[in-house]
């Protein structure tokens, strides 16, 4: 793909937190990927693997420990606070806990207008009109909801508000951190459909974080699988689901419960050994303690992402 088609280029991104006496948590340990304009990329992996840290590092909330985040050609990590602020309207984030990410004292309407108010865009009447229009676009009747407060809304409705607010500044990139994980299946489907609709209508780039591979398959063009701070496989959705190469991706796929009594997920073939923690300094492959295919080589040599098919990257010495 042409360089200029890329909206986001992440290179060698690392996020570390201090921990205990001189220890550190390597939440993100060298991650690189691109995101094209209008593309939806899913990021999956178990809890604690660094998905949220990666998302926040892209948003520069807080800034990453090292690495670059090029947004539309501009390295965000090198920008000063003021320049960063002026770019912010173009990349927005939606969080997992919809109620906690809204100001409980503000009406829904004011919450949705707020980004425009902060930017000093338009006059009050126009802001209200735009907010009402956006509410309708995300399926919230403005007559019913404009004056309500978050406590008077369900989880799904709060998530619609978050989406509306994020879209007000006409961003090019939407980073969604488990936006449906706390919602019921029936409501989850509404929000996934809404995200797809706005993504396609507006040509948005989407980084969609989830621990549920089945959802990612519905929404995304490509998937990145993360394990302990690193990407272990990146592939187009079709390829990942039909021919996963990394043993961890395979385990994730095999474990998805299906609403079909004839298909019962097998107990995973992962080893019961004590997995590494992000505080360990790890030699070799970070997955090897749980990997059914691990060999000597895996203990000494860290596998790098390499291409195994069109756009299909795998970091494993013994891919299947």
């Amino acid at each position, binding site marked *: 793909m042409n360089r200029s088609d890329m909206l986001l280029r992440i290179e060698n991104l690392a996020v570390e937190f201090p921990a205990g006496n001189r220890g550190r948590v390597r939440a993100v340990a060298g991650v690189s990927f691109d995101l094209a304009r209008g593309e939806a990329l899913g990021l999956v992996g*178990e*809890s604690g693997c660094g998905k949220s840290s990666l998302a926040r590092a892209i948003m520069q909330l807080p800034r990453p420990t090292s690495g670059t985040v090029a947004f539309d050609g501009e390295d965000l990590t090198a920008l000063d606070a003021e320049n960063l602020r002026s770019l912010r309207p173009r990349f927005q984030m939606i969080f997992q806990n919809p109620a906690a990410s809204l100001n409980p004292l503000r009406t829904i309407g004011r919450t949705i207008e707020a980004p425009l108010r902060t930017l000093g865009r338009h006059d009050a009447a126009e802001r209200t009109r735009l907010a009402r229009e956006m509410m309708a676009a995300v399926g919230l009747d403005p007559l019913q909801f404009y004056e309500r407060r978050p406590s008077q809304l*369900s989880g*799904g*409705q709060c998530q619609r508000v978050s989406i509306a607010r994020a879209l007000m500044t006409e961003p090019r990139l939407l980073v969604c951190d488990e936006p449906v994980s706390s919602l*019921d*299946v*029936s*409501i*989850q*489907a*509404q929000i*996934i*459909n809404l995200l*797809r609709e706005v993504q396609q209508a507006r040509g948005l780039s989407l980084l969609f974080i989830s*621990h*549920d*591979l*089945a*959802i990612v*398959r*519905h*929404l*995304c*063009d490509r998937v990145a699988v993360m394990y302990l701070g690193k990407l272990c496989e990146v592939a187009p*959705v*079709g390829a990942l*689901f039909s021919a996963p190469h990394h043993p961890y991706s395979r*385990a*994730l796929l095999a*474990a*998805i*419960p*299906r*609403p*079909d*009594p*004839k*298909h*019962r*997920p*097998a*107990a*995973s073939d*992962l080893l*019961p050994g004590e*997995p590494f923690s992000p505080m360990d300094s790890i030699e070799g492959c970070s997955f090897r303690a749980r990997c059914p295919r691990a060999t000597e080589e895996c203990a000494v040599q860290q596998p790098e992402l390499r291409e195994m098919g069109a756009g299909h990257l795998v970091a494993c010495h013994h891919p299947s």
Partner: protein
Amino acid sequence: MREPLPLLVVDKLSVHLPCGDRIVRAIDEVSFTLQRGQTLALVGESGSGKSMLCRAIMGLVPGRALLPAPGRIVFAGQDLGALKASERAGLCGRRIGMVLQDPLSALNPVMKIGRQIAEPMRHHLGMSRDQARERSFELLRAVGIAQAETRIDCYPHQLSGGMRQRVVIAIALACEPQLLIADEPTTALDVTVQADILDLLARLQQERNMAMILVSHNLGVVAGRAHETAVMYAGRIVEQAPTDELFARMRMRYTRALFDAIPRLDDPAQAMLTAIGGQSPDLAALPDGCSFAPRCARAEARCSDQAPTLVSDGHARHRYACWFPCAVGANT
């Protein structure tokens, strides 16, 4: 052939919670029976009353809750409502084990796990310290914890989430319960650990001929893992059948809609999901008719006027509450 006497009978059970001047009908006339050695799955979205039903069986409803007549819970022939609180607590503590969603909050963070497993055995079974510790090893091994000898002296935070849930299961099994209630036992766990924990529960249930109530909001979790499945909506059971039968012949419109909303690996990639519009009703202001009517695509006037009651499908043990049920075998 006559069925043996059920281990658990829940009969027209309601749990109403006064909230200011409103009454939240958390459970509304729920009835079912459960045999030894059988697993009943309770499925429904959040707020549908699954946990409240479990708590009612354990006698752990909030103090202000009302359990209107003629609701009854009969366990091993004993009407629990007729027992004194202390008798009931003793009975439930010994004969009913409970596994909750979040293992971390179920465990005491400052007590070694060995002691947490031993405690109920000392309390309910009067075991000595040594006896209880010996049994704790056995239990840890039974729930698949390797190196039980070293783990027994760990604190909860030193274990992974899956490992903690195994400890909670060991505690639940300590007094050899006849009924195990697992309320969303894998919801807080990673998907790669989920199948292991569910398999473990199934194995223990078989080996010990326990009855089990397996609660989940995920139809995928209960498929193939429960003898029967009851679907709950707004505090009521709206459909119940042997699990295979339920998946093969869903009748009630909500069951079907819930099933259709699940993102599936065999759908075409990037297909639109079949969402259910609206949201579940306010339990303090339930509609007169079918509580699913406001969201149901098939609803007619009758649905909002008159509540459908559970009727038999004609097939053994399949019941549903719907005026306009899905056609049998219609997979659309």
